[in-house]
């Protein structure tokens, strides 16, 4: 087990395509870190640099105390789970799992067999050991790929979207199983995904990347409640946060928010100016009478436990989403007035950074 440290790490392809920009990241011993971001954000490249499958253009990568920039993947004592598993098709499950151990030498046949069988038991694939990958289902292949990584007892697990080829139900099941196994083994894990649900549920901390730059590196709930910037605010949470261009005027004991359908006073402390106002769909409530925002229903999406309302507001028919109780089911064209707690709103400066409003509530984790 080891700490993984990235200092000022960058990657430039073909001389001019910058995939990763000066990323600083410290992954603690035994931590489960999820790297998340949209396609092309540099998360897989970063993972591959940690694995040694990509060279580092600038900066330094350390595993434990050793700088590994020039260390080959073979010598990093890492294990990787690939998106499409990359199982050796001509080998049985047993051979796939024991391949790395046999190559590394120093293990007797009995020891290898024992480790393979113990790992197979942990992953409940003991009865598949003599089969070939093409005889297995996607879920089983995924377990074998995981087994191949675990059996080697590496310092670091690297996982590149390992669940994305599974169906939704299996994905949820494997998500919890992966967490259980990681907790049981306590191996430092870097997990790459584009799925923010996986990021929120699995990681001790999440590293959110965009355009090759690290946007935020904090526990999931912190990223959700205190997004560093507009990108993080929009990326984390489903459905995404609503954004409105508004003008704020300081009024002695609060602020007046106007524009994008808003004309409301909030008990917050903020300088006069133009901002982007962010409100999560789940932070809206349907007002009994006149609320803070008058909208017209466009589409109602019943999700069972609650309903997603797709609404329009203001003269420019700005679109927004609200997540409301399942008992509230308006018709298309109905007027709905929404309200929200001023403490739940986020303000972003024109450059996208989040503005503290002095009213930020302490997080549960901080309280």
């Amino acid at each position, binding site marked *: 087990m080891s700490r993984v440290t990235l200092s000022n790490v960058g990657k430039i392809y073909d001389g001019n395509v910058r995939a990763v920009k000066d990323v600083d990241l410290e992954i603690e011993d035994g931590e489960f870190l999820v790297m998340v971001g949209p396609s092309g954000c540099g998360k897989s490249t970063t993972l591959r640099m940690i*694995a*040694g*499958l990509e060279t580092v253009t600038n900066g330094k990568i350390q595993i434990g105390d050793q700088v590994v920039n020039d260390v*080959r*993947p*073979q*010598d990093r004592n*890492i*294990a*990787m789970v*690939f998106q*499409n598993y*990359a*199982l*050796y*098709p*001509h080998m049985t499950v047993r051979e796939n799992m024991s*391949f*790395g151990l046999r*190559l*590394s030498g120093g293990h007797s046949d009995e020891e290898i067999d024992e480790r393979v069988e113990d790992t197979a038991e942990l992953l409940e694939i003991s009865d598949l050991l003599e089969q070939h990958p093409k005889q297995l289902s996607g879920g089983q292949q995924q377990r074998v790929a995981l087994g*191949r990584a675990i059996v*080697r007892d590496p310092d670091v697990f*690297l996982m590149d979207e390992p669940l994305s080829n599974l169906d939704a139900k299996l994905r949820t099941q494997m998500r919890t199983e992966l967490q259980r196994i990681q907790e049981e083994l306590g191996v430092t894990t870097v997990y790459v995904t584009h799925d923010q649900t996986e990021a929120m549920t699995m990681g001790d901390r999440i590293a959110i990347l965009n355009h090759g730059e690290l946007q935020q590196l904090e526990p999931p709930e912190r990223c959700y409640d205190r997004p560093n910037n507009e990108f993080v605010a929009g990326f984390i949470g489903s459905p995404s946060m609503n954004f409105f261009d508004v003008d704020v005027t300081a009024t002695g004991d609060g602020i007046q928010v106007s524009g994008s359908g808003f004309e409301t006073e909030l008990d917050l402390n903020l300088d006069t100016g133009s901002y982007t106002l962010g409100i999560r769909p789940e932070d809206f409530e349907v007002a009994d009478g006149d609320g803070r925002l008058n909208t017209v229903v466009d589409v109602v999406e019943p999700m069972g436990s609650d309903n997603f309302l797709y609404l329009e507001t203001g003269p420019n028919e700005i679109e927004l989403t609200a997540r409301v109780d399942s008992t509230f089911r308006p018709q298309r064209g109905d007027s709905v007035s929404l309200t929200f707690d001023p403490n739940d709103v986020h303000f972003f400066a024109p450059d996208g950074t989040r503005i503290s409003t002095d009213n930020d509530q302490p997080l549960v984790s901080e309280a």
Partner: protein
Amino acid sequence: MGLTEDYSERGPDTRSGQAIAYLQENYRTYALIAPVALFLLAVVGYPILQTFRLSLYEAPASSSIKTFVGLQNYAQIFTSDIFYQLLWQTGRWIVVAVALKTILGLLIALHLKGNIKGRKFFRTAFLIPWGIPYAISAVVFRWIEHPQYGYLNSILLKLGLIHERIGILGSPDIAWLGVVVADVWIGMPFMAIIFLAGLQSIPEQLYEAAAVDGAEKWSQFRYITLPQLKDVLFIATLLSTIWTFVSFDVIWTMTGGGPVNTTATLVIWIYKTAFDQGNLGLGAAYSVIGFFILAVFAIIYLRVYTSGGEEL
């Protein structure tokens, strides 16, 4: 009631009835392939049958009279020393030439697969030998290996590897090697291109997974490349074996089978017997033997090919 109706709609259940129904549905397909099938029967099937028949006769080319001799031609072949010399020379020719073409083809493919500069140029350049008529290449190699004017002797002399000029194609000991070199030069590009296609179909992630698993380059080749390339290697080697077995142009142009028959293969001998010596019956008997040897390779190829390599 419904069952009876369903059954009656199934059509005739006698074998001839089914055959007629099948033909009624598919006769257009058969009509379309019939001309080609008949043409092949005429130009391939008929000569094969005639060769089998001719091998049972004494048939001098100079005479129109043929005498039935039964299996006498075969008896003559199996009791002659030259037949076993030919088998040895043909086997040596195939094994060495195919092995060299396979190994060099694989080496070239492995290097062309890497991200080297000018890869496209080399890929095309390596195909050139294959595109030149075999006889032309053979003439060029005869000239290269010429004892007085050839480059090969000059280079070997300059490198100090030989002390005097040697007539490669005139020496009974090494003439076959001189011909093998030309055949390898001609046949290697095909192998390289087939292997390259095979190599490119191996997912890069397998190598990445192997590298992370601790596999060095050699282990990656041994445990990933070779097993993944197994089917392609087998088919390409088998095809090359068949083509090398029937190869005629290169040997005939370079040495005509000499000196003292040391570069002759079965195919060369068939030509010599039938058309040089004018012994058509004996030539046909050699052809029939060659036919059966080749059939073994062809059957293996067809079995593998039609099973899609699953049996491998």
